[in-house]
């Protein structure tokens, strides 16, 4: 199929339609709004349901209702809007409902700013709502990956009966790239559950809490083992390894190439999912590695904690873990290379 030049948010929305999305509800918020706008036109064309809700709370609860009845349902927003959805995430987890939530991240706490960012790593990977649950969290670096992730998202979500978050970024949503939009598809096998009004099928939830807890634990372990996804680049002989996802990962890859050309043994671990975290990727790294450098577009460094944990559980050595938290926007290649040299010459202090 021919490639088209498309804006990230529009490509993401179209990919959801191609993936068989039956229902969408959302509320405008920069930088995710084009998703809502595109679907407002396209969903009726496809004879599917789309609602502009009164807020993010209601929108996500509408998604819960649709998902409980067996629809492929989705919502999209950005940092502050996702905060409002967090209550409903927890209720969806209690009912083991599959759904997809696209987070086009912006920078900052509170209202933040409209700049691109990766401020929501912690919330998306650790939970966000009350109680114990995880989302499966995709972390695309390109618009094509964004499209492919959404195209796959419901298959995975329905397989594990676990909500999926696709962690986009402001720049990724707003920029344009050449992309191949996949063909229309439908759910391959019937769900085998879904409230239909008969009182006979329902959501096939666990009847008692003991069973629910056992199933939750079993499923979480299964996802952690089956969904290890990452791309390792030049890590086998690396002295220092960048760890980055999303747009900063593209920058880091360029930095690795440039550093290698100068004789520096740099490498990159790029998580394709940030939950479950790709601990497996760290096992493939040079055993003599001198440090990991987490490169993130937030203020305090969030993923760096998982980098430290992954390096500790995969190595007997205490490998130093550094972090460059770029704050808003996406760091440039020279900036990242500069941080590499700071780590190497000892002027950057390790975090863990």
């Amino acid at each position, binding site marked *: 199929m021919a490639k088209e030049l498309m804006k990230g948010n529009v490509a993401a929305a179209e990919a959801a339609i191609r993936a068989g999305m039956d229902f969408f509800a959302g509320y405008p918020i920069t930088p995710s709004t084009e998703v809502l706008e595109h679907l407002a036109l396209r969903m009726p064309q496809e004879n599917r349901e789309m609602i502009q809700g*009164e807020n993010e709370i209601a929108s996500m*609860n509408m998604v819960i209702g649709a998902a409980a009845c*067996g629809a492929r349902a989705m919502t999209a927003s950005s940092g502050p809007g996702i905060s409002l959805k967090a209550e409903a995430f927890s*209720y969806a987890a209690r009912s083991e409902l599959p759904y997809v939530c696209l987070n086009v991240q912006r920078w900052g706490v509170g209202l933040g700013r409209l700049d691109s960012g990766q401020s929501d790593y912690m919330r998306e990977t650790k939970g966000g709502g009350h109680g114990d649950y995880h989302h499966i969290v995709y972390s695309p670096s390109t618009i094509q990956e964004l499209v492919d992730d959404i195209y796959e998202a419901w298959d995975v979500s329905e397989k594990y009966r676990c909500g999926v978050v696709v962690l986009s970024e402001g720049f990724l949503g707003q920029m344009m790239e050449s992309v191949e939009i996949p063909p229309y598809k439908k759910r391959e096998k019937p769900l085998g559950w879904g409230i239909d009004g008969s009182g006979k099928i329902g959501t096939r939830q666990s009847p008692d809490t003991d069973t629910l807890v056992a199933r939750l634990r079993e499923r979480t372990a299964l996802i952690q083992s089956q969904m290890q996804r990452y791309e390792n680049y030049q890590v086998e002989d690396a002295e220092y390894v960048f760890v980055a996802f999303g747009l900063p990962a593209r920058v880091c890859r360029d930095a690795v190439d440039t550093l290698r050309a100068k004789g520096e043994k740099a490498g990159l671990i790029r998580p394709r999912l940030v939950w479950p975290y790709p601990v497996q990727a760290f096992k493939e790294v040079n055993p003599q590695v001198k440090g990991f450098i987490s490169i993130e577009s937030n203020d305090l460094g969030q993923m760096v904690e998982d980098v430290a944990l992954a390096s500790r559980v995969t190595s007997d050595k205490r490998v130093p873990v550094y972090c460059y938290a770029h704050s808003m926007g996406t760091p440039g290649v020279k900036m990242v290379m500069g941080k590499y040299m700071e780590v190497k010459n000892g002027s950057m202090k390790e975090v863990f």
Partner: protein
Amino acid sequence: MNVIKQAPEIMYKNNQFCAGCGHGITYRLIQEAVEELGYKDNHITVLGVGCSCNLNTLTKGDKFQCAHGRAAAVATGMKHTKKDTLIFTYQGDGDAGVIGIAETLNAAYRNEKITVITVNNSNFGMTGGQMSWTTLPEQITTTTPLGRDCAQKGYPFHLPEMIASQFTHVAYVARGAVNDSKNIRQLKKMIKNGLEAQVKEEGYSLIEVLAPCPTNWNLSPLQSLEWLEENMLKEYPIGEFKKRGV
């Protein structure tokens, strides 16, 4: 023996409500109406949080437990997915009219083809009798220990009147009560009207039910009926605020 009247079989065991609680009658009326409309095997009860949670163990029919206040939004998502299924929320006054007022009003604003049934007992029952927006002037609750001072804490909240007066396109809005057999029979007609408005795709419907809460009113069940008649019926008149087809 030929059975003439019996609680719908879908309610397969005794309810968990307190003695004299109005919920038991209200949900029985709903299920009678559902049966009479032919939707016994094609309906979903969308449950709010509060004493309404007790329905989780009362009915064999499809039901879904929502977050506090969000039932109208969940029901909206369901209705857009299952257009031929009868979908109604079952919420308390705190759920539908306080924490969930945004969801309740916005669903009415969009004229979603759902039915909201809200039981008004003038307090937050499940949490032990706190002030609700529907609490009457001078009424003692655990958070108005000296009686509700309306100048400070707001005045009794009239949800059906508000919806019927502001969202004139909705299909049906009414308030009934479960204090005696006459009002109960009238309420049954209201509930049936509301559900039928949905079935016939006329639009949004809402029925508020005045119900006694003997436990939190600190009254015997019989005394609570008197209190309801003397106080609640005066503040909250029963009747149809938006009739069908008007």
